[in-house]
């Protein structure tokens, strides 16, 4: 339950941030112990959006359970669906057609762009700049329109299914993605001009929230959070799935480990995503978009694990099957949960105003943490 504002025996002030607070990006509840303005301890309280998704999945069939996973990390819903579809395909030993593989990677990268754009706008808003939010959403709407044309939805698409994708791409897809690439190439430079070099922004970011490479590993951080500490952990590079192994792109790592490093990782990842889309958009192979599968999927008895790189880090799906049409148990390894656990470590010793900046660069999505 909600603890009241009070003081500890040492005279430290204990305050609550959330669950209703604009900078927690949802319904996270933080109990912060302060000595003056300096943070002594941050204790996240979870469960305000726990929807029991893992338990729900146990009563849904292997085709049905994909739709709830789009509602976990809704900013990278394609990639969540992708991870689940990969795990079922691994268990069923379904061979995905080449066309579906390329479409999936294209959609993943568009999602990553949309997610990073939203993060950029929201994080800048957290540290006090309101304009980037409007810039970010202007570009994001273009991606949403492309998604809507092909998948039929703007946010929770449920487009990836075991065996391929739900439907073929729209005839306009390639043309519109190319237009977007051209459009966004100029806009991303504008992002840099607007925020990256800004002296106020730099002084709020540089040297704040240091996470050493050792702690990043010990807390299990993945994604841009760990890559900002110089850890190489990109699943697309380390354990390539679909066509990532054949593509030319760099894994972005920055060694500094502070908020600005995590910011730079995401900014450069957007450029890498653009280059991946550019390589693939003219090379979508002809053929089927979905493999022929049985109407009712039954995974053989055993345990299956697959992982993908979402916009926030490593997303893992672990299925235990008893040979029935529904999973016996599903466990999702969400990147946000592990990244959040490092918040206390990063925030200690900083001022309370910096906590917002640190949380902004963690890019938390609370339903992804609570599930």
């Amino acid at each position, binding site marked *: 339950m909600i603890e009241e504002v009070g003081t500890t025996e040492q005279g430290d002030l204990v305050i609550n941030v959330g*669950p*209703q607070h604009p900078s927690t990006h949802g319904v996270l509840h933080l109990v912060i112990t302060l000595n003056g303005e300096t943070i002594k301890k941050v204790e996240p309280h979870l469960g305000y*959006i*726990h929807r029991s998704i893992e338990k729900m999945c146990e009563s849904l069939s292997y085709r049905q359970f994909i739709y*709830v996973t789009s*509602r976990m990390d809704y900013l990278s819903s394609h990639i969540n669906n992708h991870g689940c579809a990969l795990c079922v395909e691994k268990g069923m030993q379904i061979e995905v057609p080449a066309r579906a593989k390329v479409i999936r990677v294209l959609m993943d990268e568009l999602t990553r762009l949309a997610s990073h754009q939203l993060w950029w706008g929201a994080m800048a808003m957290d540290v006090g700049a309101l304009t980037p939010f409007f810039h970010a959403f202007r570009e994001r709407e273009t991606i949403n329109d492309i998604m809507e044309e092909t998948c039929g939805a703007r*946010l929770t698409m449920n487009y990836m299914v075991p065996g391929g994708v739900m439907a073929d791409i729209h005839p306009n897809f390639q043309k519109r993605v190319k237009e977007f690439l051209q459009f966004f190439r100029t806009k991303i430079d504008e992002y840099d001009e607007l925020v990256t070099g800004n002296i106020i922004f730099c002084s709020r970011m540089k040297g704040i929230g240091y996470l050493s490479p050792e702690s990043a590993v010990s807390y299990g951080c993945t994604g841009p959070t760990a890559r900002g500490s110089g850890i190489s952990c990109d699943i697309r590079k380390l354990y390539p799935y679909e066509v990532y192994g054949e593509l030319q792109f760099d894994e972005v790592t920055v060694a500094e480990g502070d908020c600005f490093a995590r910011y730079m990782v995401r900014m450069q990842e957007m450029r890498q995503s653009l280059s991946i889309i550019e390589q693939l958009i003219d090379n979508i192979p002809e053929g089927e978009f979905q493999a022929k599968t049985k109407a009712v999927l039954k995974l053989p008895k055993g345990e299956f694990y697959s992982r993908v790189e979402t916009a926030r880090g490593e997303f893992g799906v672990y299925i235990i099957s008893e040979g029935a049409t529904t999973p016996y148990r599903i466990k999702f390894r969400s990147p946000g949960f592990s990244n959040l656990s490092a918040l206390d470590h990063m925030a200690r010793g900083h001022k309370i105003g910096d906590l917002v900046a640190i949380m902004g660069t963690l890019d938390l999505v609370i339903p992804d943490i609570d599930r």
Partner: protein
Amino acid sequence: MDVSPQNTGNKPFPGEVHPTAGGGILVTKLDEVINWARSNSLWPLVFGTSCCAIEMMSTAAPKYDWSRFGFEVARATPRQADVIIIAGTIVNKMAPVLKRLYDQMADPKYVIAMGACATSGGPFFYNTYSVVKGADHVIPVDVYVAGCPPRPEALLHALITLQEKIRSGVS
């Protein structure tokens, strides 16, 4: 503070509207003017629990731009907000918090249940142990929006519907 006439020594309290038998022409006309003014400047509370919050942000963003209808002043504190848009699932742990937020809002206050989860539990209706099956179990709702998540146009329609409700004196 009790502002009823017997306690204020029959001195008229500023802004106090006395009920008249049958409703005088002045009072009903004043009500209409007040409702019209209220409906054009509704300040929403920044309240988003899950996916619908992103579509709510899209509605605030340039393409849909809810400031055309007077909603742009999103407030982070319930004490300054007029309308709460429940954007997302309400689970058992969040329900008392939502109730508290609603209680902290000043009258007149309005509620929009955005999306299937806030309307009825939506995709989380079956097989789940922690989801409140509709935010109207916790607080009264004025306008429901269908969709998972609803498109920004649907939310705009809900906001306009709420304005019409307020103008007509129903809500």
